[in-house]
């Protein structure tokens, strides 16, 4: 008797599973970082419709989200992404370098340095800004608890860290002084989550910290989801330009027979539909002229530090700041 039951349950399980994967339609896998969930959910719907109208073919787009560094690792380890839409070009460089899935000059393949949208880093504080946080140096003050994810696993956290560093260099005049400054900030960090979304929930749901350093889009989204009543956004006078590029993973897309689909998918990000959606989901679009002017009003003007201008690119940053025993490891000793 028990044997029969077991057999039946196996068959049932297999049948259930088969029914879920019986559709032979093409499926595109987009591996992305944490805060893009809502944007791509909306964008995928539009793209699927667009593709159907254009070619008559029904396609499916699947999403995988997580901390940018972790997602990069997964693609290198064999997660079969047709396209990657990650938080920083350094991560995509790693995939080209370590797994050789596409050429190293990938960033030249799409318009605007493969950046359909960009973002920046801002502060989210509790209502009324009780700790009076206005600028980066306020984060280093005694008694301010700062929430940020782990720069080793999260792309957003790297921008947070680098923005603070650039501020330190400009304000205090040297790399050593900047390091002391960033060290002071990280002394104020009670917990490092692995991705931006984890930090948001730590700050909002668990009520930890006085200030969350996060993506501009993530801060806006948090306000939208939780209502503007309890939190407010503080934009520092200068922050960092967060360049969040996209690329086709040639070898995987070819193998899956998805190359045309993957290319069309990323191209579609640059169209008026894609640009408008990006702005609506709080990303700064590459073509502001396509976006809703109302959406654009939400983006304050500010000065930017840049990855190439202030730091000489991700390869240098990786070596100087984030490799084992480099600056970050010396700064952050839990």
């Amino acid at each position, binding site marked *: 008797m028990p044997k029969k039951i077991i057999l039946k349950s*196996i068959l049932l399980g*297999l049948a259930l599973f088969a029914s879920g994967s019986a559709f032979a339609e093409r499926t595109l896998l987009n591996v992305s970082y944490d805060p893009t969930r809502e944007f791509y959910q909306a964008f995928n719907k539009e793209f699927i419709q667009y593709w159907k109208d254009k070619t008559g073919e029904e396609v499916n787009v699947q*999403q*995988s989200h997580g901390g940018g560094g972790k997602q990069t690792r997964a693609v290198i380890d064999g997660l079969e992404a047709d396209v990657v839409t990650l938080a920083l070009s350094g991560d995509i460089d790693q995939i080209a370098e370590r797994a050789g899935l596409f050429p190293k000059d990938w960033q030249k393949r799409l318009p605007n340095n493969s950046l359909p949208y960009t973002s920046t880093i801002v502060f989210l504080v509790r209502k009324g800004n009780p700790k009076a946080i206005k600028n980066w140096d306020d984060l280093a003050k005694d008694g301010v608890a700062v929430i940020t994810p782990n720069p080793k696993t999260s792309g957003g956290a790297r921008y947070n860290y680098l923005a603070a560093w650039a501020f330190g260099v400009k304000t205090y005049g040297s790399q050593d002084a900047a390091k002391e400054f960033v060290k002071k900030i990280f002394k104020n960090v009670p917990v490092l989550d692995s991705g931006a979304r984890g930090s948001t929930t730590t700050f909002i749901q668990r009520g930890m910290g006085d200030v969350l350093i996060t993506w501009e889009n993530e801060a806006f989204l948090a306000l939208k989801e939780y209502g503007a009543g309890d939190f407010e956004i503080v934009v520092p006078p200068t922050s960092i330009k967060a360049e969040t590029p996209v690329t086709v993973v040639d070898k995987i897309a070819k193998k899956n027979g998805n190359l045309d689909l993957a290319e069309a998918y990323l191209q579609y990000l640059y169209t008026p539909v894609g640009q408008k959606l990006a702005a609506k989901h709080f990303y700064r679009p590459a073509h502001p002229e396509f976006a809703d002017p109302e959406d654009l009003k939400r983006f304050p003007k500010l000065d930017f530090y840049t990855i190439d201008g202030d730091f000489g690119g991700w390869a240098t940053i990786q070596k100087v700041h984030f490799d084992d025993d480099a600056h970050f490891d010396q700064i952050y000793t839990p």
Partner: protein
Amino acid sequence: MHVTSSKPLSGNPGVALTDPAWVRWSLVGVSIAVISLFLILPLATVLIEALSKGWQAYASSLTLPDTLAAMRLTLLTAAITVPLTTVFGVSAAWAIARFDFRGKSLLTTLIDLPFSVSPVIAGLIYVLIFGAKGWFGPWLSEHDIKVIFAVPGIVLATLFVTFPFVARELIPLMQEIGHEEEEAALSLGASGWQTFFKVTLPNIKWGLLYGVLLCNARAMGEFGAVSVVSGHIRGLTNTLPLHVEVSYNEYDFVGAFASASVLASLAVLTLIFKTLLEWKQSQDRKA
């Protein structure tokens, strides 16, 4: 308890009952308070959150394609791993309880290994073996076989963490029962299989079911190991526990807690069956 040990041990089993009433009641009270605070309250919160926007929202979030896919994957994983760990558990318990051989204690220790290894490590082991940069990665991708970030990886990781459940349950039971009945059956001319199905299996059935039950609960609830090998593809490689996290991270609290309530009710069912089995087992032993 000093109160009881200071008295002469008369061999009266009711001696503990002579504790003053306030000791008894405060102990009972503390236990109930702790259980309510740490078990019942959180479980109730799950249900309250899940139903915070009404039954309609609850039902519709449970019938979303991604949620259904997660349930399907969870059931499939359990349907594959539970029979395998059962077969393994019975054979291992048989070997350890019935035979003496070199390395027996080593084997017993190895069976316990998954209990002591962190599930995250369990997941990483498979990434290192089957990942694109792992030992078998290049061969697998040449033959277009997906293990990691696909269903086989999830099954393997679950198998690893549920491995000891049945064996752990059966080994002490079979050692306690001894092999007189089986020897009698064999000497009366029964074949090996006949002995197993007619003598051994009826003796261990409640313990076996108990092990299977625990194994199933863990297989459906495992998070850490599965999270490492899943790749988190929505609607494809998210099991129910992973889906809870994904929904929660997407501010879909009703969805997250609705899925969590499914897992919680599974746990409650497991508890009920467990109690039932324990009762049955004690009945059988008395008989």
